[in-house]
Structures are given as structure tokens and as C-alpha cells.
């Protein structure tokens, strides 16, 4: 029973990892852009949630209302003003700049909020649980979080498959030069892609704030889990990313069951094994030429 429970908790945790990973996957998939500050932006959104709750006293889920649009706008503007200048054939400038950005963000948060670990309370939700039958119960918060991960990924997939902007983003991912011949401004499309990724970052940040403790230095480890989930799932497939997150979460859950100190290590070991056996990930998208 304990083991089944560990697996279920791991699956739910995987939803959070998938949320961390989805934004990263979008940025890389469309712009071939590696954002080393990704985890720090998630933590920044978590601190934003803290500020919002301190100021208003309402349930932290309401923080989505201001934080999602603010981050989307910031993502679009940041892409147009800064990141578009870096995008090119060479991936190195974006790595250097976002590495710098990561350090700046961490220090700004440290300055503003101190190094203390924070947590945002969702009131009664924090302690409530849902019974899955057979003696299994899961926390309401982790359960809602998993559902939101599925929701976010379903919405993103719908946008890509069914809307004109989604079609344009897929085309940009295929061949940004030829997209220009279609009369589309690549710089604008990159901005839209970044705005979408930032919306996911905002959701991930708000939910992170409710789910776990966080502090200004918590970004890099989130980034690492996100990378692992993306790579396990295979680049380019968001459902693959969800599965990657779940595998990582389950590995950590089982590791913790063996020995609490094994939690993080078990995740890394499973990641390494998959990387060796299946370097393209479980569900890579096949791309022609």
C-alpha cells in the first residue's frame, strides 16, 4: 500500500514538473532558445503570488488573474526588445544572457524577500484530501495541480493544432526564414511564443507557491527537473513532456520510499538511464528534412 501511495503521489508531483517543463519546451521547440532563467521566472511568479496574497488576503488562486497577463506582456516585450536580438544560428549568446538573467533575478529576489523559505497558504484547501478509494487519499492541492497540468497542455495542443496562430508557430518552428515569405513577421511570432510560454510559467509559479516551500535560490533545481522532464518525454511533444514529468515524479516518490535521502537522486538516475537507452526521448516528434 505504501508503495502504491508513493507511485500515486509521484504521478501527481509529475504534473508540477510537466508544468515547469512545458514553458521550456515551447521556447526551445519554436525558437531553438534555451532559457537558463526559466526556473527563476517560475520562482519570481511564486513571489508575485506571495505579494498578491499579502496585499489582498484572498485565495492565492486569484493571483492567476493579474500574474498571467503581466507575465505574458513582459514575455512579449522582453522577446521583442532583448531576446530577438540574440536569436540566430548560434545558441551560445542566448545561453550566456539567460544565465546572467538568472543570477540577476535570484539576487533581486534575495534583496527583496531575504533567503527565507516561503509558503503561500490556500486556506482549507491545504489540508483537505480526496479519497480515491481502496484506502488511497491524495491531497486536494496536488490533485488540482495535476489536473491543471493536463488542462494547460490540452489548451496548448489545441492552440497549436486548431488556430491560425498555432499553425504559424509550427511553421516558424519548421523554417523561420520561409515564414517571412508568407508575409509573417518572425519577430512578432517569437514574441507570441514567448508570451504563451510565459503564461505557462505564471501558472507554474502560482501553483508552486501553493504546493511547496520556495526561496530565491529555488529556480535552478526547478530548471533541472524541467529539463529532465522535457528530455525524457522527447523534444517537441507536450504530452511526452507530461509523461516525462510523471516518470520523474514517480522515480522520486519511489526513491523517497526506499530512503528519504534517495528522492532527488532516484529521479536523476532514471533520467540518466533513459538518456542512455533512448537519447531521443520517449515521444520525439518526427520532423521531415
Amino acid at each position, binding site marked *: 500500500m505504501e508503495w502504491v501511495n508513493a507511485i500515486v503521489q509521484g504521478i501527481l508531483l509529475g504534473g508540477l514538473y510537466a508544468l515547469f517543463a512545458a514553458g521550456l519546451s515551447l521556447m526551445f521547440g519554436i525558437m531553438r532558445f534555451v532559457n537558463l532563467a526559466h526556473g527563476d521566472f517560475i520562482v519570481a511568479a511564486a513571489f508575485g503570488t506571495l505579494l498578491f496574497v499579502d496585499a489582498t488576503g484572498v485565495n492565492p488562486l486569484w493571483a492567476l488573474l493579474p500574474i498571467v497577463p503581466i507575465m505574458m506582456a513582459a514575455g512579449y516585450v522582453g522577446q521583442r526588445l532583448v531576446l530577438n536580438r540574440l536569436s540566430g544560428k548560434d545558441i551560445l549568446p542566448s545561453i550566456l544572457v539567460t544565465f546572467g538573467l538568472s543570477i540577476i533575478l535570484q539576487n533581486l529576489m534575495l534583496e527583496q524577500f531575504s533567503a527565507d523559505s516561503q509558503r503561500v497558504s490556500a486556506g482549507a484547501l491545504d489540508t483537505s484530501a480526496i479519497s480515491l478509494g481502496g484506502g488511497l487519499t491524495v491531497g486536494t492541492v496536488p490533485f488540482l495541480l495535476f489536473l491543471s497540468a493536463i488542462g494547460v497542455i490540452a489548451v496548448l495542443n489545441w492552440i497549436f493544432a486548431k488556430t*491560425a496562430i498555432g499553425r504559424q508557430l509550427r*511553421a516558424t518552428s519548421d*523554417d523561420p526564414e520561409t515564414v517571412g*515569405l508568407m*508575409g*509573417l513577421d518572425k519577430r512578432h511570432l517569437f514574441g507570441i511564443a514567448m508570451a504563451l510560454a510565459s503564461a505557462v510559467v505564471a501558472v507554474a509559479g502560482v501553483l508552486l507557491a501553493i504546493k511547496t516551500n520556495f526561496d530565491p535560490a529555488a529556480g535552478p533545481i526547478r530548471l533541472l527537473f524541467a529539463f529532465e522532464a522535457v528530455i525524457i518525454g522527447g523534444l517537441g511533444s507536450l504530452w511526452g513532456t507530461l509523461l516525462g514529468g510523471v516518470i520523474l515524479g514517480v522515480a522520486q516518490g519511489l526513491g523517497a520510499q526506499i530512503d528519504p535521502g534517495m528522492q532527488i537522486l532516484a529521479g536523476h538516475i532514471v533520467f540518466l538511464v533513459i538518456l542512455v537507452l533512448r537519447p531521443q526521448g520517449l515521444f520525439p516528434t518526427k*520532423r*521531415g528534412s
Partner: protein
Amino acid sequence: MTHLLEAKSLDAFYGDFQALFGVEFHVDQGESVALIGANGAGKTTFLKVLTGLLPVPGQSLSLEGVDLTALRIHQIAARGIAMSPEGRRLFPSLSVRENLQIGASVKRPGPWSLETVEKLFPILAEKANTPSTLLSGGQQQMVAIGRALMANPKLLLLDEVSLGLAPVIVRDIYETLPMIREQGTSVILVEQDIGQAVAVSDRLYCLQEGRISLEGKSSELGRDEISAAYFGRAREAS
């Protein structure tokens, strides 16, 4: 009278490498102009300049009298230049129909729509939901032309439509050209096959090592004259 498109003494560079030298070129409304030349002569480079893919700041290049050199690729497309590029360059993650739809992103009004393009190339309606990567070479070429038409261009650029295709298929594709021109669209076509180029064009330019080596009415140019300009025997002889 201003030409639809006019390039005056145009040079083009890839870094330090000069690919075009003093090219004088024009196309009038409704004209079909062939651009021929050996491999590496600079034909694709010239089309890249026209679309803005290869910028030529400060030079003389205009569409309907409007300077193109200060515009970006997408702005030039919006003004009515569309291209079926060398190697087709379809979007592999898009279906056939999505490839066509994205061609209409400029939202220029005109005769071409999903319906009329699929009437021009009926196979594209049949394969609408197929990934473009699963089509034959000829079908892919039809998608590339259809995608360009969806923009309702004033000027259509066709780069090596027949590359790698069987002669029957090339004939099928060129048979649609009169229907495209009927709508008033001007065409610049780059073609390796001189006979084909002469047959479907009003005028012809020959490029040789980045320079225009011959220009004239396709019906009035002699076969020898063209091969001399194409292969560069004219210079050896003089």
C-alpha cells in the same frame, strides 16, 4: 511608364563574396519573364534579393515605384511578391491544406483562395489532410506554387519548378501557368531547361557569373545566341 518591378545596376553580396554585378532587370504588368543561367550564375540570389531574403540596402530596386530595399521580408510579401522557393521549402509539420492556408497570411484580396487553388491542382484537395512530407515531388511543387498563389501576388517568382521532376509532371505543372497569368499575375521563372523557358516566357534574361549576359524577347532570340550567353562562349569568341 514605371515598370511593375525594376532593378537598376544591382549588386548583391554574401558577406565579402559578390554574387550579382550591376544587374539591370524589369518586369511589366502581366509579363512572364524567364531567368536562365548555369548553376551558380546567381538566379536564386536574384530572387532572394527581390523577396528581401537577401537585403541590398541603399540600392535601386522598386515595385510599382516603391523602394523595396528599406522593407523587411514580410513587408515585401504584403506588397505582393510571392515565391515558390528553390527546393519548395514546405513546412513539414503542416498538412497540405495548412501549408496552403499559411500562404494567405498576408490577406491580400484577389482571385486565389483555397477553393480556386484546389481547383487548379485537384490532387491537393484530395491530399488536404496529408502531411506535406508524404507527397511526391510533383505534388510538393504544386503545394509550393499554390501556397504562393494564396497570397494573391502581383508578381509570382518560380525558382526551378522542374528540379528533380519527371517530364510529364513538369508539363502538367507548366500547363497551369496560362491560368495563373490569366488573372493578371506577372511571373518570373527560373529554369534550367532553356527550351521550356523560351516556350513559356515573353522575355528572357540570361545570367552568367552574376552578370546579365543576354536580354530579349523570347520569340526573337536564336538558339545559338542563347547558348552562347548561357555557357559563356560569346566572351571566348570575342
